[in-house]
């Protein structure tokens, strides 16, 4: 670190006596002639936010040739032009229908318990100025497309400088500020390895949303939306005061999103089929409830000309939504729909879902900014806390209540007559094809009469958080050529992991033991107790049971980066140092781990660093080549590090830092007519970890599966091209070809929660398998037409393919091919080969119109996604975690699949004044 500091200082004192060309100007609203504080300007590969007064300055622009400048702001039509006046020019932006950019974002919430990773894709790149990033974000998100195939852990998300990635799994969850589209629109997003001004950066990129009131445009804005996607209605109101003469700014946003996406509802009689599927048109709704509020409020105060300002920001999104569950193809074929959802059933004729996620994570922030001359410092204290819970069925000594449990499917029955009978019930009897709530209640009533515990119940699995983040970032301009960015962060997070009895379904009580352990140990054994200090504890609704532990993490980081700009070359170099300490604190003494489940566990400490450098060759004002290289290490994530944290305090043996090497080479072309980028990237991950839990039917218990020593390579090409064919017609083309593979043979640790066997170890033969869960081939071709009378038309043809089914690691172990002759290649391939999911094309169309009257603006727009109603695109799925070792019958436990939505629409009405 010391050496690096010296290097930075040394380089800083070397001055280059080149005559430099610079571009400066002010960005203004065309109508009001007021400065546009939220605007972004970009020359070549460099993008920056304008100052509060709308001014900007680029020093060291290429000396030769024409220079292309692009100017953009949320809600305004972008300008791309050749710079004519290099000094103090005025750039006027015209308002457009910003809601055109408002849909397209799918909230894809996978279900972690089902082994689907729980990844949500939204946002990061959509605010980017880059053609590829923006279009990939909008047009490919329906297919769970992840840029460069990276897990979301590799993208850092900040709000006003506070790090929002989850401390346990490293992923940012966009639903924490869902519905606050207007408040989160001001953001600085950088994809890949490019440097940014607010952090060291991450492998996949970083985004910092500016939610200070001072950054919000002056406006009142109402938006109403109608959709048949995740929700039916959305209502938003946003207010911004702008900066008052006394230096105050206020802003506010309130939203609500509700309804389950317009399906036929037998109670209300409203009939708008969601996917126009047989399954829906029969009048069976898909049981997805959605009710989400969002609020945001901020006050900023600028203290005269001292350069100091303070902002207070508060936001949150209390959300309640039912989860979609994937099922087997057999089930989809039986009910005639690829969108079958087995998570709900009828209770007294009403639809009820067993899996409801209820989250509310309010966040409060105090931001202190100092900006004067060449110094800018932002310091943020942020506190987030609240509940994150998902309900699920639990049962004791009773048949599995889930309708698509494999023993309830026709394929389970060898006798064709019985199978046909079961199939018939599946098609016609919703008490068989969905959860039979009434029966679950009846079973519990019978238990009550006998004075026994309930057999069925709904539990709420909670991962509540309390997270404090204090950070400070300095941007110091040292001279005309050199800027220094530096920052520090301290983060203290606790996640509270426990479950509560949410609903006893008519039963009277529940006994807090592990029913799976009870099968392997005698019913009086200590092993069956979840809380040995309170054996056979009787619990009622609201009580904590099963497990109860906290995960503590203390994280600190320092970074510094020097950016050097000259007439032909820019380059930068930076370093990061971080330290992570985590430990578990158990509140229950588990009977299967009496010695190491209660109290504070060992503290696990990790020290990490990152080094990053890159250069831009400014060939002229339109052609640029730049390259970046990164080497960094990072601590394992808590979610992966602990083996069976619900019962014991044990981490994976040989817990190591993950190492990442990444580089990219890019060519950027920028002219007023054509803008584009082509990138070659190559990233290697070493010593990564993966983990998941599932119910193991053979062992009859929950099993935690941890993979360590996971190496991956992600390499590929990205292309983005935007061509102005006519002044009012432009075409965009984006495409990416990836090769994302595993390159090691990970070590697996298999841990049974019922303690039936000691933790087992296994080698997984993953070398050269494709990384799953995202298309590795994707593209989109778009046409944008700005018709007369402020009408905007847009059409996009999208394509995704080369996405693979998530693998069961056990199927790539020695045990899986035990007894298969090496000559029997067909069987060997059937067991070992990865299944490529069905890809395909979708067509999206949108239209918008803006009306303007005296400072009022009315936006109308509508979009239809997947116009051709292609319902065969598989967006994901996973092999069952069971395997038929004895017979090697790969079809015995079929995989679960998820399909992309059919035709959906989104209609928006917005008023702004």
């Amino acid at each position, binding site marked *: 670190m010391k050496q690096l500091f010296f290097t930075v200082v040394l380089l800083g004192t070397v001055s280059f006596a080149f005559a430099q060309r610079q571009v400066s100007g002010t960005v203004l609203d065309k109508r009001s002639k007021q400065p546009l504080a939220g605007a972004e300007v970009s020359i070549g590969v460099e993008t920056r936010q304008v100052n509060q007064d709308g001014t900007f300055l680029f020093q060291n622009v290429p000396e030769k040739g024409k220079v292309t400048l692009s100017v953009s702001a949320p809600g305004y039509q972008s300008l791309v032009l050749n710079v004519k006046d290099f000094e103090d020019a005025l750039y006027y932006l015209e308002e457009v229908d910003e809601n055109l950019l408002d849909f397209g974002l799918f909230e894809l919430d996978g279900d972690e318990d089902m082994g689907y990773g729980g990844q949500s894709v939204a946002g990061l790149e959509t605010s980017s100025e880059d053609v590829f990033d923006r279009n990939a974000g909008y047009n490919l998100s329906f297919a769970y497309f992840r840029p460069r195939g990276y897990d979301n852990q590799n993208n850092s998300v900040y709000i006003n400088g506070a790090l929002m990635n989850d401390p346990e799994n490293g992923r940012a969850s966009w639903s924490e500020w869902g519905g606050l589209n207007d408040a989160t629109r001001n953001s600085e997003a950088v994809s890949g390895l490019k440097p940014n001004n607010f952090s060291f950066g991450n492998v996949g990129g970083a985004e910092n949303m500016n939610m200070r009131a001072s950054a919000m445009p002056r406006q009142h804005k109402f938006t109403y939306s109608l959709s048949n996607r995740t929700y039916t209605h959305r209502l938003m109101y946003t207010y911004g005061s702008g900066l008052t003469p006394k230096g105050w700014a206020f802003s506010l946003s309130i939203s609500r999103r509700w309804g389950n996406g317009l399906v036929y509802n037998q109670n209300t009689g409203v009939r708008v089929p969601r996917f126009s599927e047989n399954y829906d048109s029969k009048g069976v709704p898909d049981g997805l409830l959605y009710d989400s509020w969002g609020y945001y409020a901020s006050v900023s105060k600028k203290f005269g000309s001292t350069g100091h300002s303070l902002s207070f920001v508060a936001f949150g999104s209390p959300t309640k939504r039912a989860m979609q569950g994937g099922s087997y193809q057999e089930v989809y074929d039986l009910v005639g729909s690829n969108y079958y959802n087995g998570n709900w059933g009828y209770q007294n004729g009403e639809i009820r879902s067993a899996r409801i996620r209820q989250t509310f994570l309010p966040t409060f922030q105090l931001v202190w900014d100092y900006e004067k001359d060449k110094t800018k410092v932002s310091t943020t204290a942020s506190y987030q806390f609240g509940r994150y819970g998902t309900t699920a069925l639990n049962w004791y000594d009773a048949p599995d209540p889930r309708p698509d449990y494999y023993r309830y499917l026709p394929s389970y029955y060898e006798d064709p007559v019985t199978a046909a009978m079961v199939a018939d019930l599946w098609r016609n009897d919703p008490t068989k094809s969905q959860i039979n709530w009434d029966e679950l209640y009846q079973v519990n009533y019978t238990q009550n009469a006998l004075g026994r515990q309930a057999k069925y119940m709904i539990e709420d699995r909670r991962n509540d958080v309390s997270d404090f983040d204090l950070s400070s970032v300095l941007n110091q301009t040292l001279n005309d050529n050199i800027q220094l960015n530096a920052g520090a962060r301290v983060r203290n997070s606790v996640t509270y992991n426990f479950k509560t009895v949410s609903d006893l379904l008519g039963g009277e009580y529940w006994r807090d033991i592990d029913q799976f352990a009870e099968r392997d140990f005698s019913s009086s054994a200590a092993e069956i107790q979840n809380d040995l200090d309170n054996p056979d504890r009787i619990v009622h609704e609201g009580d904590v049971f099963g497990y109860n532990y906290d995960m503590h993490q203390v994280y600190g980081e320092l970074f510094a980066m020097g950016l050097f700009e000259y007439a032909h070359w820019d380059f930068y170099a930076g370093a990061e140092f971080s330290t992570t300490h985590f430990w578990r604190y158990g509140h229950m003494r588990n009977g299967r781990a009496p010695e190491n489940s209660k109290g504070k566990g060992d503290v696990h400490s990790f020290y990490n660093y990152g080094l990053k450098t890159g250069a831009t060759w400014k*060939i002229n004002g339109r*052609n640029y*080549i730049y390259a970046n290289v990164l080497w960094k290490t990072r601590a394992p994530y808590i979610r992966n590090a602990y083996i069976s944290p619900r019962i014991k305090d044990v981490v994976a043996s040989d817990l190591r830092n993950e190492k990442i090497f990444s580089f990219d*080479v890019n*060519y950027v072309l920028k002219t007023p007519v054509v803008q584009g980028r*082509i990138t*070659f990237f*190559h990233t290697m991950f070493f010593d990564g970890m993966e983990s998941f839990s599932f119910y193991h039917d053979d062992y009859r218990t929950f099993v935690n599966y941890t993979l360590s020593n996971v190496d991956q*390579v992600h*390499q590929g*090409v990205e292309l983005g091209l935007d061509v102005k064919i006519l002044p009012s017609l432009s075409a965009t083309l984006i495409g990416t070809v990836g*090769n994302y*593979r595993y*390159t090691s*043979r990970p070590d697996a640790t298999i841990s049974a929660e019922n303690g039936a*066997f*000691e933790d*087992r*170890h296994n*080698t997984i*033969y*993953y*070398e*050269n*398998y494709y990384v799953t869960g995202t298309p590795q081939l994707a593209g989109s071709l778009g046409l944008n037409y700005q018709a007369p009378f402020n009408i905007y038309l847009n059409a996009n043809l999208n394509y995704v393919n080369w996405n693979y089914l998530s693998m069961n690691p056990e199927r*790539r*172990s*020695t*045990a*899986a*091919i*035990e*007894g298969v002759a090496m000559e029997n290649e067909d069987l*060997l391939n059937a067991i*070992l*080969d*990865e299944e490529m999911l069905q890809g395909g094309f979708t067509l999206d169309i949108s239209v918008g119109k803006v009306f303007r009257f005296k400072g009022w603006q009315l936006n109308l727009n509508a979009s239809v996604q997947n116009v051709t109603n292609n319902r065969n695109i598989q967006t994901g799925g996973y092999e069952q975690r069971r395997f038929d*070792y*004895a017979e090697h019958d790969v079809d015995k436990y079929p995989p679960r699949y998820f399909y992309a939505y059919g035709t959906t629409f989104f209609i928006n009405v917005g008023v702004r004044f």
Partner: protein
Amino acid sequence: MKNIRFAFLFAAVAALASCTGERDTPEAPWTDLEANTTIADLISNYEGLDYAAIDTPLYIEGVVTGNDISGNLYKKIFLQDSTVGIDIEIEMTNNYHKYPIGQRLVIDAQGLAFGTYRGQPQLAAQGDNVTERLYEPECDEHFHRKGYASEVNVPEPLSLSLNEVNFRPSRYIGRFLRFDSVQFDSAGCVFVDQVAAATSGNAMNRTIRDKRNNSLAVRISAYALFAPDTIPYGLGTVQGILGIYESGSNRELQLFPRMKEDLIGFSETPLGNMGSENE
């Protein structure tokens, strides 16, 4: 512009140097360890001892000949080399998944214990002056698989007459044996009468007999998958692992078929004048 071309060339070369390997295939388990003694030497080394901790580097190598595939053997496997076989006591049900018949194993016996239980030599875990069953992690530590299991590995059962085995049993204990032209005394009954078995260690002896009236007990567990089946009629071949059970001065030899397929050539239905067909 020449430079731009160069940059593209670089990118193209880098792209070609991409990762395109063959799909991984799990490798057969392997160990370079080899036996430094035979099972027969191991047994004779500790002959007659009820308990002996093995604390010298001792490796045996053999093939699994018996396990709990049909439940007739319980929490044990038999390992046999070119000399004899030995009973290995494992605290694991469904051990046939992990140690299928035909699996070649090298066992690092140092740290394990030798014991004699009712006359039966055993390899097991060290306990407090008594052997205990090996837990799975101990097996993982001491048992090294050599290749996949294959029926080809299984030694041919040693064909003996009942007279030979009764006359000199000690050299056959723990071995995979085969007896031709024998018949069951209780043909037509079920293998295990669950009520009767409850008082006899949850198993029953079913006697086989040859034409010279030599006999041997065939022991069937009440938990064996074929326990409720009917004992077949006529003459046939019985194969299995030979065990011994000493009680005071009583010594009983017991043959353990590993599965129902170890009873070969019998008839499901009663024959008229039994034995005459073979004459």
